[in-house]
């Protein structure tokens, strides 16, 4: 029953969303007024290289051929799916002839490492502390924490990140002002290198965790305050159930349900990168790669990153849908 009535239609929907999403991402950049071949030539010229105007058309023809843009859109679309089924997103136009998958592989560990950690940390911190503060919303510590979050939350991310950079990179000079690791160090699985990477990730992570947690804190706190006023909580209190058990098992557990869906969406968005973080802290990652791809009309690279992002988001939403009964026993797929 579950398979026929729910799982199969849900899986069909899952594949349809991916197919449509990728199709849209294929065509949208081609509708933009940025031509990757012309953009490459303009970039080369703007960097000071002299290209004899008499030879530019020949160069355009050669690049169009090499980039695989010589056929009709339909032909390119067909070729794209054939390549994709072989796990190949093609070559980057702007970093020709480097395969897109290699560029993504280089940037992915940094993005996943930073964003996975910060998303989970801020989610856990924001939800646990927010839940506790919501439950004890009349206590002084809760009010102080709420005021603090109220102050932190509206700070624009760029301003907050830059403030951290100035404070810890310039005033106290305790943390590096950029990069993923110390200059001159090559990646290795040594404790010293790992600590070096953590040291470089500290400020970017702090900036994301603090603002992210403040956001989770506020939403969870409000949800918890709502749930706390519901009848079943009051029955539990009247029934003499321990306060800690009511808070975590009754109130926070119920309040967490929408936050779990939000967490899945946040995790899925990791693959879009964190552009502002990467810019402020000169931190490696997918955000910068995607930004450059869009501004240079690097269709294949845009396709590669966005396709992964689409797959990640839809997959996580699917997983959450499927395991939701574990969090909320009231839900049954029939």
């Amino acid at each position, binding site marked *: 029953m579950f398979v026929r009535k729910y799982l199969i239609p849900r899986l069909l929907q899952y594949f349809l969303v991916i197919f449509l999403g990728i199709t849209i991402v294929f065509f949208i950049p081609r509708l933009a007024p940025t031509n990757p071949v012309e953009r490459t030539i303009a970039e080369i010229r703007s960097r000071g290289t002299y290209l004899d*105007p008499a030879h530019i058309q020949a160069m355009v023809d050669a690049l169009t051929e090499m980039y695989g843009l010589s056929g009709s859109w339909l032909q390119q679309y067909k070729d794209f799916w054939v390549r994709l089924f072989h796990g190949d997103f093609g070559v980057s136009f702007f970093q020709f002839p480097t395969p897109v998958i290699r560029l993504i592989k280089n940037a992915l560990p940094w993005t996943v490492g930073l964003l996975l950690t910060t998303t989970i940390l801020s989610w856990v911190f924001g939800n646990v502390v927010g839940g506790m503060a919501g439950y004890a919303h009349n206590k002084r510590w809760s009010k102080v924490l709420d005021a603090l979050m109220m102050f932190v939350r509206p700070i624009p991310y760029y301003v907050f990140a830059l403030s951290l950079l100035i404070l810890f990179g310039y005033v106290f000079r305790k943390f590096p002002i950029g990069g993923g690791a110390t200059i001159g160090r090559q990646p290795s699985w040594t404790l010293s290198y790992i600590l070096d990477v953590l040291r470089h990730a500290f400020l970017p992570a702090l900036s994301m965790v603090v603002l992210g947690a403040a956001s989770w804190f506020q939403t969870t706190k409000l949800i918890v305050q709502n749930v706390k006023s519901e009848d079943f909580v009051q029955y539990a209190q009247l029934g003499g159930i321990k306060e800690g058990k009511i808070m975590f098992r009754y109130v926070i557990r119920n309040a967490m349900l929408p936050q779990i869906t939000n967490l899945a969406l946040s995790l899925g968005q990791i693959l879009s990168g964190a552009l502002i973080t990467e810019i402020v802290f000169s931190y490696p990652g997918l955000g910068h790669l995607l930004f450059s791809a869009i501004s240079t009309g690097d269709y294949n690279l845009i396709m590669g990153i966005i396709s992964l992002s689409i797959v990640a988001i839809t997959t996580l939403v699917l997983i959450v849908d499927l395991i939701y009964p574990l969090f909320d026993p009231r839900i049954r797929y029939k």
Partner: protein
Amino acid sequence: MSRTRNVLLLLCLTILVMSSAVFAADPSGFPRDQTLIVSMLTGRVGTPSNFNEWVGWRNRDRGMQNLANEPLWSVDFATGQIINGLASGDPVYNEDFTQLTIPLREGVAWSDGMPFTADDVVFTIETIIAEPGLANHPTFATAVKDVYKTGDYEVVIELLESDSRFHTHFLDRWGCTWIMPKHIFENVEDVVSFEFNPFVGCGPYKLHSFDPAGYWTAWEKRDDWDKTPTGMLFGEPVPKYVLIQTYSDGSAKIIAQLTHQLDVADHDAEGFAAAMAQGGTIRAYQLTYPWVVNNDPCLTGITFNTMVAPFDNKEVRWALVLAIDIVEYLAQAVDGQATLSPVHVPHLGAYPEYYIEPMQEWLKNFALDLGDGEKFYPYDPDAALKVAEYARQRGHQVSDDPEELKATFGLGWYKYAPDVAAKLLEKNGFTRDANGKWLLPDGTPWRIRITDINDTGHHQFKNGNAAVQQWKKFGIDAEYIATDAYSTLQQVGDFEVGAVWPALEPWGAGADLYRSLNAFYSEYMAPIGDNNRGHASRWSSAEMDDIIKRMRATDPTDIEATVAVSTEALQLLIEEMPSVPTYGYSGFMTWDEYYWTNWPGAENPYMGPYGHWGTLKYMLPSLQPTGNK
């Protein structure tokens, strides 16, 4: 509850204490007093392990062109000289420019110890011709008939058609066609996908290491630096290591320089002001106002799309020039920190001597016909003095010495004459409404859209917005449209006015302006909708074509003949004004003198000042360590 709270507090404290102990700074391995750190202009390297600069874009300012590579010739815009690198002298053309002979420098070695010879040059050209995937393939395949050596240090290139400037493909202005080490590339199966890692060049530095994420590249001085053209011409480079580093955010770059983690930095105008405001060991190119690098071989300004009405009318174009108060314009664009140029070459190096000063009399006598026999002489030889006066009013100390003023602010520009501009427009059927706003000849409101770059720090943005202010003041509904797609839009002619350079950048050395002027040849101009190969103004004329043809038949080393024909072209551009030259590119760069000094500032411009140009390697033998550790 209180127990939970205490546990949380304790946890936070523990994390903080541990983080400070565990995260103690790790030394980089580059002794700071032996290391020069230079910011990279073109940003993060997309493919850090790929050094094959014959294929596509490879961020060559990460150290290839400025430290580890050596071209046949280099431009030094600070001195206006062309430096012989791997070539030992000028190219020698035959009479009809279908053959050139290049003499090569003897005793040069690649960074892996192999000798550099004519075989490398011949191999490079043959490989580029044979491989369609290499960037310069179309140029060489369509131009070169044959290439061969006549000895170990002499190469002859035969051309399919006459080309008096073919050698400029090997002239490094900010990149050029580099010579391949034959002993490496001849063993490569696929030249296009070959990464050329580790990089091997004839420059004085060799690759040390690089960031797999693309933020830095480290170079180390070669032990055999004396076997490089840099060593032979300028001596031993002083820094043992050079780090080329990029910061994605301008603020981080300023912090890096203030904390002595960055010696050479390029900023935008605002970042420059912020860095300079901190004082200390930071200095600019000029020691006094206007501080900026004002000898960059680029000219900024405004470009009309001359295939779109009403900008297809030169009197309309001139009216818009006369509606500009250049002192205000310069103040709005760069707070007066730039050098004016009334013609389509920047006021730097040898250009004032060859062109701008000799053209003064012609400029003073140049008149616009206002109709009914009335004439107007638009040139204002004192425009630069007015900019200097503006700077004084702003409280800056400006010299009274006319020669210094010329070098700082240029010579003249065009008069601010809104009444004359109005006459020119009225002569062409334009009218004004009751509010004084200009109407097109068909009676509809005149709106000018300047479409250009989406980067507030860029001079195109600054020029475009200054023009908007001026034309609004004149009564035209002008607006600036910032878009990342501006280059494509300009290429297909989907714009009215842009702020792209009014003429292509000249070489910056010598008298030859072919690089700038050839772009106005009519064959390169495409109709609206098609991709344009010539100058963005899409302007050309039979007269200009004739001048360009004569230029092609002129030996660029014949200075007198080159100046004469180029001057004709510059005069024609002023008469037609398809684009408006305003001021030379102002470079907002700073040096930190904490570790290194004797930079090539305006008081001692022994070499181009930038860290991203090829001339950086020639500057390094002159740097002096301060002794700070």
